[in-house]
């Protein structure tokens, strides 16, 4: 049986210096309660892996503003001016990764693959320092898997086994991140009993989820 825990119990498992993947796309939507608790606890020197750094006052954007992030791995940071400022001043290291490559690197880690071969980024600074591999006369970049200590994801309906159903455009990176971290905590809009979710509707099987926290709404 999966354990439903409090926000405090969940965040107590997260320590300074950890790498943390957080689902969401421009704040649509991050696990807001878990992120706010990370801000409150002041966990620092985080390596944050996310699609973007949101807006300064929304979700994971606050972690940047609060200077809790040592390194950010993301595809887009243009909506949070503080990210740009800390990047230019050298306070925070930023690794920009093409969005599709970021998805595949996380998926590769979860799938036990040694990396992926993608044409994206060839001939650009993204290719610097990376192996180029030719397959049947076509060149590809070797992009390596990306995993983390913790993944914080957000689901619409989650049963007590940890089976997750996402809603609308909030799915984004969540199902991938759920497979690629040692500790996976899902923030559920609604926690339901085992059997309440139709197996056909489950998008992340509960075996990937370690802990559940309740109630975004």
């Amino acid at each position, binding site marked *: 049986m999966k354990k439903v825990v409090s926000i405090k119990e969940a965040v107590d498992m997260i320590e300074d210096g950890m790498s943390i993947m957080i689902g969401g796309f421009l704040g649509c939507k991050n696990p807001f309660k878990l992120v706010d608790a990370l801000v409150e606890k002041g966990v620092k020197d985080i390596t944050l892996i996310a699609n973007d750094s949101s807006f300064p006052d929304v979700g994971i954007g606050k972690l940047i503003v609060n200077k809790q992030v040592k390194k950010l791995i993301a595809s887009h940071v243009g909506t949070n001016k503080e990210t740009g400022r800390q990047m230019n001043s050298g306070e925070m290291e930023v690794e920009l990764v093409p969005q599709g490559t970021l998805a*595949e690197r996380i998926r590769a880690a979860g799938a036990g693959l040694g990396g992926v071969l993608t044409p994206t980024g060839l001939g650009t600074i993204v290719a610097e320092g990376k192996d180029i591999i030719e397959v049947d006369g076509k060149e590809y970049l070797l992009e390596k898997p990306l995993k983390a200590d913790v993944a914080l994801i957000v689901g619409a309906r989650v049963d007590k086994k940890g089976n997750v159903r996402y809603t*609308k455009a909030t799915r984004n*990176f969540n199902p991938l991140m759920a497979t690629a971290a040692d500790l996976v905590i899902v923030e559920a809009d609604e926690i339901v009993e085992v059997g309440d979710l139709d197996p056909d509707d489950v998008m992340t099987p509960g075996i990937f989820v370690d802990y559940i926290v309740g109630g975004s709404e």
Partner: protein
Amino acid sequence: MDDKNYIAKRVAQELNDGDVVNLGIGLPTLVANYIPQEYEITLQSENGFLGMGPAAEEGKEDPCLVNAGGMHVTINPGGVFFDSADSFLIIRGGHVDATVLGALEVDEKGNLANWMIPGKMVPGMGGAMDLVTGAKKVIVAMNHTARGNHKILKECTLPLTAVNAVDLIVTEMGVMEVTDKGILLTEINPKYSVEDVQNATGATLIVPEDLKEMEPQD
């Protein structure tokens, strides 16, 4: 009609009935307003859905439904949501017929720069590198110059988004195809002369004898 809408209207003529299309943020988003009503065009949003509809009406915004620019939008009947890996499978795998996006610079080899100005603006590439690598047709929709500076060049100076990726450039001055021989001016806005367009361009344009006129920009 202002330049942005004039460009968007012309880009819409490049789309074919049945196409799957990804529109970038800003000017490219306006293209959706000029798609012929009888066409069935499926818009892809790289944060994870097909069948994107118009912007959400005020008061009816859904916090769980935004486009790749974070704006509240809608989904049409028959639309479908998926995760980011599937979204970029669609994009990178050649399942998007056309992508329309802006540029800082484009050059005569079809190289594109649109994601950073070193030391000044580094927003990140988002999905742009995958889109221009994977889409069957890459259309750049932009103003011809930026505050008088050339954007269409012999060779890009800014960090590239992709090499040899751009197929077509549409600006308020004309329509240009990127060919093996260079940039071919195929259509011109009748309020400009070929000399005007050439003066606003940093690469030598190839001007065909059958140069067409765009619709007047009234």
